[in-house]
């Protein structure tokens, strides 16, 4: 397994008592696969990503990446956050370049790479705009290519399209599908939108309500190449959606009952 999560549990300590975010998670992820993680809010989806990124330490259990036990922040990992994390004092070009700048890549080289990606994302003409001058969709595009710029093996995405309107979302889903099909990065995608999870990924993992445990691991039987709108109108999609929705619904209702 490329990413191996073994008996992972995370408990947050707080003065009002401990909160168990994840409990006994076991997942194996193969290189180059596209995994979605879905579950009711507060089930620890984001925590799972943060553990893999080395930003949160597991309370117990281990994470292995490419045969090495995770300690600290792994190299070659990319993270597209739910929140807007573009640096507001850098323009688009500066934001896309930053990963390469951190790695000490020479100025001309990183500029060339950044301009390529900006063009690919259809953002040409916006190189020198500041983040506040961009729309939400553009900002998430920049966040995505900022991650692609330094070519990480694994890309973690935490509800990256959560704040976007429905149309922009579908466009960006298609772009992401295209990028994944071309680059074959390993992507772990957290979302609360079941349709999005099915549309994008090979495997959907449903987590239970807090503490998050694995409820079901489901392989989506829809072949690639996929296009967001086509997937949604296919009969397989409806079938898969109904099966997974039953599971997800149970967990969402549990949260509501509290």
């Amino acid at each position, binding site marked *: 397994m490329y990413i191996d999560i073994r008996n992972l549990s995370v408990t947050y300590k707080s003065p009002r008592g401990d909160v168990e975010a994840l409990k006994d998670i076991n997942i194996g992820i193969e290189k180059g696969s596209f995994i979605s993680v879905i579950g009711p809010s507060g089930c620890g989806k984001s925590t799972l990503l943060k553990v893999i990124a080395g930003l949160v330490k597991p309370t117990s259990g281990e994470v292995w990446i490419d045969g090495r036990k995770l300690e600290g922040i792994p190299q070659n990992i990319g993270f597209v956050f739910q929140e807007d994390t573009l640096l507001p004092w850098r323009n688009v070009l500066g934001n896309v370049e930053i990963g390469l700048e*951190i790695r000490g890549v020479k100025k001309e080289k990183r500029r060339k790479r950044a301009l390529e990606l900006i063009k690919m994302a259809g953002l040409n003409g916006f190189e020198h705009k500041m983040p506040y001058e961009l729309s939400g969709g553009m900002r998430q595009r920049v966040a995505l290519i900022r991650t692609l710029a330094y070519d990480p093996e694994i890309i973690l995405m935490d509800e990256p399209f959560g704040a976007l309107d429905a149309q922009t979302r579908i466009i960006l889903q298609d772009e992401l599908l295209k990028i994944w099909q071309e680059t074959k990065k390993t992507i772990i995608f957290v979302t609360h939108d079941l349709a999005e999870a099915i549309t994008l990924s090979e495997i959907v993992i449903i987590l239970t309500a807090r503490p998050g445990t694995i409820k079901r691991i489901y392989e989506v039987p829809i072949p690639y190449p996929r296009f967001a709108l086509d997937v949604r109108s296919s009969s397989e999609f409806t079938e898969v959606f109904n099966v997974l929705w039953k599971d997800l619904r149970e967990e969402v209702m549990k949260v509501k009952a509290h």
Partner: protein
Amino acid sequence: MERFKRRSYEGEGSLRRKVKLDVLRGVFRTVMRLARVILVFAVIFVAWEIISHCKIIDPFYISKPSAFLIDLWSMFQTGYIYKHIYATVYEMLLGLLTGVATGLIAGIILAYSKTAYDLIAPIFASINAMPRIAIAPLFILWFGIGVLSKIALIWTTVFFIVFYNVFFGIKNVNENFINAILVMGANKRQIIRFVILPSIISWLLASLRPSVAMALVGAIVGEMLASSEGLGWILIYATGLFYVTRVFSILMLLALIGVALDYSVRAMEKAFLKWRPA
């Protein structure tokens, strides 16, 4: 509707025309604003002149615009005023410089050292709670009636403004920004360079406007208490002689200086903080 129109692109030519129009519109708006301000002041001064001239209020107490404007003019003509403006501005600048520098350093130290914070923060809080003017007599005793006592007085106000801004600025640095570049492999030095320093600069600039305003207050109050030169000294001296016209001349001058300083700090903020929406 207008904004929507301006944002859409309709080809090179019309865009350029629009930009030109925008510039013209901006110039026009500035001229109009200036005209409005001048008009308001003209009305006030004329009313003041009439009230004084007709002795509705005794001109001994309120002077009149014609008198103090001529007085102000003659102070510049004879060169009498320059040395006093210089003294006041000199105190302000030195007070500002020391206050900003030390406030910045203290803010950084206390934000990163828990021990320093626990030891020093209560002292800072109690000094900051004190009306600073109350310390002024002590400063005069310690540092004399020269420049030094005014610098000290200004320092006590500016220091705390800058200190608290920088301190809370660092404490509130967006955690998400740090996480985002941490996963890209940033080390501690790079986090400081790419995230923390830019945040501090923006907070520091934000503290500059109130600092400059307080520095002017500090200089004038210091001079009024004990000094041998400066605009505050003229104020006290003229009041003592019942020379109300001179008092109003200096007040007008101070208003002008205050506005000019505030305007320049704002221009500086704009230049440095281009990345912030206006």
